């Protein structure tokens, strides 16, 4: 991983920490609420998507970092990582979709798409490391 200490990188890390904490809090709230049937019918959809919001926020934080990062080389590394993440996630999802369609594998919850994307981000870092000697950030 690039040991950058740019202001943009520090802001990105702060956002990531806050969003992770919010995600944990929202997830616990939603799971507890549904498990104990505490959620009023009118709020079910809202509470169900609560954990997704900070995840979307992390995607936004990565985009914000790419806009704010002034070091073009470090920014390029992160762009390569996100392209890897997207290609990996879309490829796996497409293959799984066809396997699922023909009844060869079980159905998987949609939120695993985001997990695949973050895993792809790590793969992108590995690819950066192997090809140009720097992993890049964001994972």
């Amino acid at each position: 991983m690039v040991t950058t200490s740019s202001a943009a990188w520090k802001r990105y890390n702060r956002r990531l920490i806050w969003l992770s904490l919010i995600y944990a809090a929202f997830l616990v709230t939603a799971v507890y609420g549904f498990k104990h049937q505490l959620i009023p019918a009118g709020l079910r959809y809202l509470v169900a998507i609560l954990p997704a919001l900070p995840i979307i926020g992390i995607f936004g934080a990565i985009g914000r970092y790419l806009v704010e990062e002034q070091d073009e080389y470090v920014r390029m590394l992160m762009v390569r990582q996100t392209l890897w993440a997207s290609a990996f996630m879309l490829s796996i999802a497409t293959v799984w979709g066809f396997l699922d369609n023909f009844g060869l594998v079980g159905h998987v919850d949609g939120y695993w798409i985001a997990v695949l994307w973050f895993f792809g981000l790590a793969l992108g870092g590995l690819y950066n490391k192997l090809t140009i000697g720097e992993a890049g950030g964001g994972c």
Partner: protein
Amino acid sequence: MENRLRVLRAERRWSQADLAERLEVSRQSVNAIETGKYDPSLPLAFRIAELFDLAIEEVFVSPSRRHSGAI
């Protein structure tokens, strides 16, 4: 892209970190440019050339000229 950055830096006895600080980029960026792993944007290439008080083509070797054997 081939360049004379390492030589120019060594002439001034600057470390990669020194040069990075002057250019306001990371040390990794300087290393990647020096080793030809990364081609800087035109604005950054101008900043580098101006820092050494040189023209861009005195710092970076044009790939087309290099291939044609002009340099």
